[in-house]
């Protein structure tokens, strides 16, 4: 078959942009699609929490404490008679917020740090990367515990602390990308045209290193959600009565022998959410991998 100029085959080839190739690969990856369905569902649930939740999450009903799942309380009630389903739905907001804000902070710090380090190289790079090594030496979780112990355990403090203890991975990733991209000919060409360092960093190098950053950030959301749950579980995270999956779990732990549902549902929610973000992150990574052909 000959392909004439202007024929449909040629036209459809022309419009095969990078984003289309990405999309095409992504939708064929079942795990990635299920990951994005989970993440999307969580978004919808947390956005519509006031409509979706059947009860006020802090409504105490002492006549109905530690009830098993019934028709009026599908996931039962806790030790104060509050509806577990409503608390779970409102708790998803906390998880989502912590995940995104903490990872947002970590990503911004990581990009700036890694970009400067990788772009300028030399002794600047040496000093900055040794600082990263030092930061990585601290066991992150205990560092967070120690810092939170000094500060008020508010949700904002938790997000900031998770953010500023979690940027090192992204900084290393960005640095590595910059080290290889700064020698590429299109970057050299921009320098030959007299472009400023800032223009080269933000217009040329950064857009070409977004793929691994995006993957790392998605996986980071899962990590941040886990950390927040763990902190809340230990009682230094989100403080009651604000519902968070972590502190619902704590309440469940105290009554696990008589009310198993109190620990099962928040545990499942954390599991599914983290799984969803991990699947999504890995799906994005696989779809962006230039070595895999369509």
């Amino acid at each position, binding site marked *: 078959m000959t392909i004439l100029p202007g024929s449909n085959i040629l036209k459809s080839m022309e419009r095969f942009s990078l984003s289309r190739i990405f999309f095409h690969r992504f939708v064929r990856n079942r795990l990635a699609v299920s990951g994005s369905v989970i993440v999307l569902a969580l978004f919808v649930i947390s956005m519509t929490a006031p409509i979706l939740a059947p009860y006020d999450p802090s409504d105490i009903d002492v006549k109905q404490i530690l009830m098993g799942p019934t028709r009026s309380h599908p996931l039962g009630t806790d030790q104060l008679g509050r509806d577990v389903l409503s608390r779970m739905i409102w708790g998803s907001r906390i998880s989502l917020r912590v995940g995104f804000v903490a990872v947002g902070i970590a990503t911004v710090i990581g990009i700036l740090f890694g970009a400067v380090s990788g772009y300028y190289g030399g002794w600047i790079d040496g000093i900055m990367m040794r600082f990263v090594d030092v930061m990585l030496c601290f066991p992150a979780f205990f560092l967070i515990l120690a810092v939170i112990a000094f500060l008020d355990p508010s949700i904002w403090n938790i997000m900031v602390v998770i953010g500023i203890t979690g940027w090192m991975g992204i900084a290393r990733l960005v640095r590595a990308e910059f080290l290889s991209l700064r020698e590429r000919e*299109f970057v050299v060409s921009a320098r030959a*045209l007299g472009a400023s360092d800032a223009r080269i960093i933000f217009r040329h190098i950064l857009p070409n290193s977004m793929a691994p950053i995006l993957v790392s950030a998605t996986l980071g959301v899962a990590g941040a959600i886990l950390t927040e749950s763990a902190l809340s579980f230990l009682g230094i995270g989100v403080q009651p009565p604000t519902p968070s999956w972590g502190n619902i779990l704590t309440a469940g732990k105290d009554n696990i022998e008589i009310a198993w549902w109190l620990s099962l549902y928040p545990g499942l929610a954390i599991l599914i959410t983290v799984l969803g973000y991990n699947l999504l992150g890995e799906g994005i990574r696989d779809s962006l991998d230039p070595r895999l052909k369509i």
Partner: protein
Amino acid sequence: MSDDNLLEIKNLKKSFPVNGSSFSKDVGSVKAVNDVSLSIAKGKVLGLVGESGCGKSTLGRCILRLIEPDSGEVYYEGRNILGLTGKEMKGKRREMQIIFQDPYASLNPRMTVGDAIGEGLVVHKVAKRKEKREKILELLSMVGLRPDSIDKYPHEFSGGQRQRMGIARALALYPKFIVADEPVSALDVSIQAQIINLLERLKNELGLTYLFISHDLRIVEHLCDRVAVMYLGEIVEIADTSDIYSNPLHPYTRALLSAIPVADPESKRERVILTGDLPSPMYPPTGCPFHPRCMDAMDRCKTEAPTLREEGGRRVSCHLY
């Protein structure tokens, strides 16, 4: 220096340190460009030939200060640009541009063709919006690309088309001097001819001066007015193209020229076959850098390095002359 030289290089040197492990000092250095002096007359094309790794590209990039030379002088229109401040150099960059070898690596995959070509216009605040777009369309037609290419991305084009974009980008600021760093080595032979013709036409139309880096001696013969032969970071011979091709003096030049294939199976030519490999530039041989591979090597060559000397209107660095 004479007035008709656009560019004059004197004693340019650049060496790269070779790192040991991260806890030890540098183990040595590679002299990529070793005491190179040459000049290019206005409107002329100087070909720079030599084996891979002999420092051709490094020299080209040192001239544009994309790699900062260790020492020496680069006079552009009589002014040493190595002494310019960042701001002054930015102004000079409008006049000195570069075209790269690999058309797949030289265009930012996340920028449209129009943005890539118009980058210089933005950086130097030459033109905005509508005016800029018109300028880019003009450049596209100048290099023989369709106007609707402007909003597409580089991956939608072939190697030859991308190389045209690289040329258009270099031309956007109306430069006077262009370093063409093996601009056709990565292309098919049929496309090579098109790009060479384009470069030739642009040179005549715009009065450009080229430093044409290549290892394809036939293209150099076709395009260049003068040829400089480089070996291990040094210029071993520099002369007018016709002189070099009709009567190569340096043994290395002779060996290079005899390697050009001839499209005649009957022809019996005297081939000069070099033995051995290019020595490690970290440990260059004593004396003449070429003596371990030279068929005319004398005892003197092993101890005494020859210098580039005038020999009948041309310059050669060899003890034979």
